[in-house]
């Protein structure tokens, strides 16, 4: 067991060591990682204090009939609930003793990326990771897929709340139509991948299947009382924070990827998530992203094939799949193949210094200037996962300036050689050791460590 393995466990799988972590991990780094793979995930206490997104949406849509009242309530919830919630999530990543869990929440949250820039998402997108992602990171992929796509934040982000079957009860009266956005991204970005073997017809079929998945809305609620009496049927079916309204659902059989789905309302998409999970293109696409995240920017084909096989054989059991990733020889070969993203970097700096108290400072402005504000990825593709994308001249300068500035707040209280061993251990290069030895002040020595290429990689 070498310190290199401890470095890999702490930086690549975790979010960077807290003081003393590297020494503790040293005994059995792999076991430290795999012990965190637990099918049942508890929500950390600090994240349980916030109301769920369903309650928030009900407060918004129930605030007043007028659009104005809803907007006002949405803004208030954004300020009073969503912003503190994001801050608390960031703090959790800094103080967590289960950092691999936190990394996987971030990984899957980025795979099923949503943004908080759109509509009511400013008030609810912060709840998405806790409600839709975290419970399933080591569960079955089809459950994760279902929870992510039917969460209100996703339905808002990719316009499914606007999609109405033209032959649905609502669509016929209001002359509304289907919006394909969510269907296209599910196939292209979340499951099969762009070359995964689907056509425009499949996008259209999936879009029809997805009609009906929407958010609580006063208008439907008012209609439901009337309709429920007439139709003798519930208007809103609830699935966690998401809702299905058959009033919006395009009726009839749909053909997706060669399979006919008979009219089944909300059950259609539940079945689709299981079929997409069994599709070999999904196994390959997910394996590629995992191997890119844990092995190298250019994922070795053998590793991808191995992980894809586990995904297929276990029909998307993410505990098994993740275990297989940890077991790849290539994972433990090179300590520094990946660059930390800006969020990873800022979290790692604050973990190294044991400073979750400055999470708010880190959130505001710092991440934007480094190009990675929480829940603000430039597209539904999420954030990139390569060194080339992150180590750009401008954002690297911001990282260095951040490290230098942070060191002024703590530098004189830390012994540089101890801090070097805490953070980099044996992976520290001669160049970096030289920098630290020759630093004009303790403060600059700490800054050199945080800004070193070893610390910025993982």
């Amino acid at each position, binding site marked *: 067991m070498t310190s290199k393995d401890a470095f890999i466990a702490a930086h690549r799988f975790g979010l960077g060591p807290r003081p003393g972590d590297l020494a503790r991990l040293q005994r059995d780094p792999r076991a430290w990682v795999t012990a965190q793979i637990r099918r049942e995930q508890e929500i950390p206490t600090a994240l349980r204090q916030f109301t769920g997104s369903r309650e928030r949406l009900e407060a918004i849509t129930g605030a007043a009939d007028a659009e104005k009242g809803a907007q006002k309530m949405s803004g208030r919830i954004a300020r009073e609930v969503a912003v503190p919630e994001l801050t608390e999530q960031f703090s959790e990543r800094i103080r967590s003793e289960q950092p691999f869990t936190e990394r996987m929440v971030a990984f899957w949250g980025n795979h099923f990326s949503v943004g908080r820039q759109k509509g009511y998402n400013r008030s609810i997108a912060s709840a998405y990771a806790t409600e839709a992602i975290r419970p399933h990171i080591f569960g079955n992929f089809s459950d994760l897929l279902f929870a992510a796509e039917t969460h209100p934040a996703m339905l808002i982000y990719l*316009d499914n709340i*606007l*999609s*109405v079957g033209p032959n649905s009860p609502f669509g016929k009266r209001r*002359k*509304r*139509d*289907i*919006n*394909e*956005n969510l269907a*296209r991204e599910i196939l*292209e*970005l979340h499951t099969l991948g*762009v070359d995964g073997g689907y056509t425009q017809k499949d996008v259209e079929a999936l879009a029809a299947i997805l009609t009906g998945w929407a958010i609580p809305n006063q208008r439907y609620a008012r209609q439901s009382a009337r309709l429920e009496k007439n139709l003798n049927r519930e208007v809103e079916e609830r699935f966690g924070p998401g809702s299905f309204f058959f009033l919006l659902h395009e009726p009839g059989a749909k053909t997706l990827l060669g399979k006919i789905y008979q009219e089944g309302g909300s059950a259609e998409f539940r079945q689709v998530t299981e079929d997409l999970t069994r599709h070999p293109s999904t196994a390959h696409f997910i394996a590629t992203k995992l191997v890119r995240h844990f092995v190298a920017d250019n994922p070795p084909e053998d590793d991808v094939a191995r992980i894809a096989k586990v995904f297929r054989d276990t029909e998307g059991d993410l505990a098994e799949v993740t275990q297989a990733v940890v077991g790849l020889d290539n994972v433990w070969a090179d300590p520094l193949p990946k*660059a930390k993203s800006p969020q990873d970097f800022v979290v790692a700096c604050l973990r190294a210094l044991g400073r979750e108290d400055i999470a708010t400072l880190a959130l505001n*402005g710092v991440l*934007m*200037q*480094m*190009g990675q504000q929480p829940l603000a990825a*430039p*597209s*539904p*593709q999420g954030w990139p996962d390569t*060194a*080339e*994308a*992150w*180590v*750009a*001249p*401008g*954002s*690297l*300068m*911001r990282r*260095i*300036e*951040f490290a*230098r*500035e942070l060191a002024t707040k703590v530098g004189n209280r830390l012994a540089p050689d101890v801090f070097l061993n805490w953070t980099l251990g044996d992976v520290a*290069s001669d*160049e*970096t050791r*030289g*920098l630290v030895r*020759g630093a*004009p002040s303790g403060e*600059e020595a700490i*800054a*050199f460590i945080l*800004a*070193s*290429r070893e610390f*910025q990689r993982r």
Partner: protein
Amino acid sequence: MSYDRRDLLRLMGAAGAASFLPGASLALGRAPTDRRLIIIFQRGAQDGLQALVPYSDPFYYRYRPGIAIPKPGTANGALDLDGRFGLHPALTEFHKLWQAGDLAPIPAIASRYRERSHFDGQNLIENGSGTPFGANDGFLNRALQGFDDADARLGMAFGYTVPLALRGEAGVRSWSPSTFPEADGDFLMRLADSYRDDPVFAQAIEEGIAPMEGMADLSQREKRQAVRAQTMAPAAQAAADALSTADGPRIALIESNGWDTHNAITGRLNRLFADLDQAMGILRTGMADVWDDTLIITMSEFGRTARENGSAGTDHGTGGVSFVAGGAVEGGKIHGGWTGLGEGALYEDRDVAPVNSLESLLKAAIGPHMGLPMTYLDMVVLPDSDAIGPMKGLLG
């Protein structure tokens, strides 16, 4: 502070960087061309029919009953150009350029991409290969490599990261607003030295510390404003400052986001076009001294559906709109073909037809305008494009 940074550059011995030393440009030679090219990349697929409004076509109003821009002369109406087309009413600076003969709108323009994924569409344009994953470097970077002195960092990105279009072997500069105090030169120099065996970090730090004269002088308050505003204006100002200097960059890309207007298009485009218009005004003023050498192109990965959707927006389409501005353009007229929106004219009965070629526009900009030979464009910059010639009549 800037003295330290120059020392640093001298010590690093970067040939290109040396040309930034004040007074050194004469001794070391100027940039290999005086021409300037600025691309404003509107990510998300701009709705061309709202930017350049074909108000004389009755189908426009039939397809877009809820969102069409009214005819010129009515409230919130289009700004008339030639009796057929008008500009979105927020594009007042664009309209001034048109009146000065410095604006060439191109309707119905599309790259070689015929699907409807943002990411593939942007990739294909940025890597220049004609397929979404056909190359790992960018067409603008390969264009930079075609100049004699590719080391002079003639390319520059304005945004928080360097986009694929500018990534590759040629060094490029980048600009993004920052509120952090600058790290001092000695600190950066030592750090850069320790990065030397890591090419990704070594290149990024070298390019990150290349000083941008003029921009370093922003006050802390101005920096904060620029970061908070999230508009294109600070980037446009920085681009104008950088590209108008004699030994500054020559090819720039300015990022512009938020164009994916699936819903509530009217209010969103009012804001986006106002922001774009302000940026264009800043570029026009800031680059006055080099205006005759300047070409500014707006472009997007594809256009949007001709018909509005059920949510007062439009969905991913094909033909879009580019504007070409600058003293170097043959402006004051609509360039390229236009086959209208009537029955049978739409691509797949839903999108504006791809009548004009984006690659053809880019070829005119990089070839005749920037001065690179056409064979180099056909083979390196935009491979497999020899069937597409440079757009004719575009340059004044």
